[in-house]
């Protein structure tokens, strides 16, 4: 995926873009009419098409994704933002809503000492974007998808005699979006695909599971799964039948690419969302230009990352996507902005204003957040572990931008002694610690790189698709 506007759209995507432009051209007039009364107005339309399959022993399901069709209008009265949204996309309904919104915005008075909100626009101008897909999911029938992913599930189910259940979930979607402000109208078509596999195994007294996921913006070429990968899932699941609890303590660790990505996301992803700066909830605001990790630490947020699950072309507030360097050589560089916090803090915009749906507000959000690769090989990192743990398959984490604490839950960890695996495996492993300590202890970074996919919340809501990842890291942290 690239946000290069010179990339020509396919014939199909070009036709869809033209249709979107034609159908929602009326939003230009609505925005212009609103701006005759308020200093800033914008409109965004989102529609979605897609399916989800859930296949397991004894049952199958096929669903259409919730289209979530709707429009959101934004108006500023010069001090704060007011928004209205509806699923009624008829021009007259949107016009009525715009009138009521302007009336509401103008009827709301600022607090006595409130500073004006000055919104400086940087585009998006006029453009049409679409995710390239080598194998468009739309070219396969539902029957072909059921055959393909049902077969994949069966191969996983048969990978080990101790398996008791295997689940395959598949989803594809096209999100079509139109954004309009006074600089122009942009259309965007973002395709996402996802395959998630879970294998449950039992030895009669204990049950464990392992999972594998492939997800990306793009086509089915991103969700190919090999027999070797299926065997890897079975090996992890069956190994976990002998898993022990890790003794609490501080360990030298190597993190796999998934766990590395979760560290990037939780440590200096959420904490660099500038709405958190505005709310004084992020300690990082006071550390811009200061050291927060070793020289080897480089973290980037990049909505243009090829295939990244969190990739897009224009954010939900009209800012064209570009990468943002969050940490360079251990020094904190800058935050990720939404429109409101950038205006309030006087920051240059980054393309990180994102909404769960038109029903929800835009916040400063991550896209694809990752450590950049280093110079050592993965094997060199593992060989360096005299007495440590290789942490794998982080499942989730929780940010604490104010306290810089971190909580990450890894599905398992393998013990290494003298640079070699001992065969002992621990599950689950809770990783906790103080973020600057964890990043200061990063002593080796591998050359390999992978992006994982996930869903990110703001607190416990406002879910958006994101990517996270990077290379392997060698560091030190507290496990329990």
């Amino acid at each position: 995926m690239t946000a290069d506007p010179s990339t020509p759209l396919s014939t199909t995507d070009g036709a869809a873009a033209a249709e979107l432009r034609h159908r929602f051209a009326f939003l230009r007039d609505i925005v212009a009419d609103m701006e005759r009364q308020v200093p800033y107005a914008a409109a965004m339309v989102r529609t979605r098409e897609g399916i989800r399959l859930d296949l397991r022993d004894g049952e199958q399901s096929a669903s259409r994704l919730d289209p979530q069709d709707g429009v959101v209008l934004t108006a500023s009265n010069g001090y704060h933002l007011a928004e209205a949204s509806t699923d009624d996309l008829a021009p007259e309904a949107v016009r009525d809503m715009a009138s009521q919104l302007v009336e509401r915005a103008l009827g709301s008075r600022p607090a006595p000492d409130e500073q004006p909100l000055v919104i400086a626009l940087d585009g998006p101008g006029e453009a049409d974007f679409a995710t390239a897909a080598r194998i468009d999911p739309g070219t396969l029938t539902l029957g072909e998808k059921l055959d393909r992913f049902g077969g994949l599930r069966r191969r996983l189910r048969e990978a080990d005699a101790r398996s008791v259940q295997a689940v395959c979930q598949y989803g594809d979607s096209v999100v079509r979006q139109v954004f309009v402000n006074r600089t122009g109208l942009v259309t965007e078509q973002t395709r996402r695909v996802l395959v998630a596999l879970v294998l449950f195994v039992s030895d009669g007294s204990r049950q464990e599971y392992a999972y594998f996921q492939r997800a990306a913006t793009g086509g089915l070429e991103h969700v190919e799964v090999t027999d070797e990968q299926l065997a890897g899932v079975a090996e992890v699941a069956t190994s976990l039948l002998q898993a022990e609890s890790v003794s609490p303590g501080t360990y030298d660790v190597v993190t796999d690419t998934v766990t590395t990505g979760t560290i990037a996301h939780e440590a200096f992803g959420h904490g660099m969302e500038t709405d958190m700066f505005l709310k004084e909830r992020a300690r990082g605001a006071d550390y811009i230009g200061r050291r927060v990790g070793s020289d080897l630490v480089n973290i980037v947020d990049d909505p243009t990352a090829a295939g990244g699950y969190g990739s897009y072309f224009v954010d939900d507030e009209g800012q064209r996507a570009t990468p943002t360097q969050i940490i360079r050589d251990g020094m904190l560089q800058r935050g990720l902005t939404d429109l409101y916090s950038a205006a309030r803090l006087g920051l240059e915009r980054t393309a990180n204003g994102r909404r769960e749906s038109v029903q929800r507000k835009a916040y400063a959000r991550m896209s694809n957040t990752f450590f950049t690769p280093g110079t050592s090989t993965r094997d060199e990192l593992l060989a360096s572990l005299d007495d440590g743990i290789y942490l794998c398959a982080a499942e989730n984490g929780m940010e604490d931008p104010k306290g810089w604490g971190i909580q990450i839950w890894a599905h398992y960890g393998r013990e290494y002694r003298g640079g070699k695996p001992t065969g002992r495996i621990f599950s689950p492993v809770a990783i906790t610690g103080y973020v600057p300590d964890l990043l200061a202890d990063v002593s080796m970074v591998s050359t390999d790189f992978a992006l994982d996919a996930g869903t990110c919340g703001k607190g416990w809501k406002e879910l958006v698709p994101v990517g996270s990842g990077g290379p392997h890291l060698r560091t030190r942290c507290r496990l329990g």
Partner: protein
Amino acid sequence: MDQRLTDALQRQPGVDDWTVRYRRARGMQIYLVGGVVESTREVARDSYEIEVFNDHLADGEAVRGSATIPLAREDLDRLPSLLDRAIAMATLVHNPPWDLPAPAACPEVLLADDGLLDPAGMRRAADGVAELVRGAVDQEHGSGVRLSAAELFLHRFDDELRSSRGIDVSATGTHALMELALLATGDGEEAEYFRQAQARRLDDLAVEATVRHGAQMARDKVRAVAPATRRGPVVIVDQALDQLFGESVIGSTGALLNQASASSAYAKISRFELGSPIYGGIEVTGDRLTLHANATRPHAVPSYRFDADGVPAQDLLVIADGVLVARPATQRYATYLGLPVTGRPGIAQIAPGSTAAADLLDGDGPLYRIAAFSAANVDALSGNFGMEVRLGYEVGPGGERPITGGSVTGNLFEALAAARMARETRQLASYAGPVAIRFEVLQVSGE
């Protein structure tokens, strides 16, 4: 409900059964940053979801296929092609047959706040809460606490469900969500209190009390230290109860109800067996657990009149004295396993014990009382959990001191064998039960 939809379903060839779900949602949102309004929002959405069923043969076996199709407003103008597509999907899906439920009387369950039913009332309520938050935080200024941010979401939902078996039911509910972030300063340090509270009634958010409690927690966090590493007693209170018993990463019903459910049993991933203790073979030394899945509890967030199939809400006794006595079973999995249909589980409701909450803190050595974890993280398959301590207290002969950081780990099902419940109760978003539960042995990993 749009009559075109049910008419089209009745005419559509290949539809052997159908269910239509309609939701009309109207909402208001207000966002404060440091007491100043960042934005206000009004939202409206009318959404339909149809589920069509097709009975056919696959490999000589009678099977039932289904497809779930959420609709956008404009889809109502192109129903024939959408229904053709839905049936095509259903014919490709092969499941063991099950029947939709027959009509049955649905209980009157209290789901709404009368003050949030009309738009004007909702607007007044939103402004009122904003004022309450500002006023309550002002009261705390003297102790170094200020408002970072607050969000309030108010919604009214009108739900209708019809099915080919003659079900025609409706319900009206309201929902209020408040997110609150407070900052406390002291001795050059700053700490945050963050809480997301949900309720069906605005009063249940207890805005002023939540601000006061949050301000105290923020002040305590300023002087909190890391816990020591030890295995021993841990008392879970407040928001941490919701995180341990209610929410979970895999299933929204929490690990206990997930493992008890008929769907887990059908998938062969339930470690519980009907008629057997749920403690994983561990000898019980504490209060034996009694758990209801209560979908009729008044004004509980997970409560409902009818579930997605139209099954009436129930208050179901799931675990009695530590033994699994019933599996929460939706229509489909009840049919598959030959169990009574109970519908989707409601709130996890744990029976109280006989010990006063204050007495749960007694003992010879120090213990930890955990008020909030950083996030819920209980594995619904195994019951394993590991959660960072956002705020807790070390309780000993010399009094209490706040702790933060480190983690509490264990296995929920096994740990419950040595748990004692307080006799006082409370209701949170996804948990109702004792105000405190003491686990005799959990691992705390800290300094």
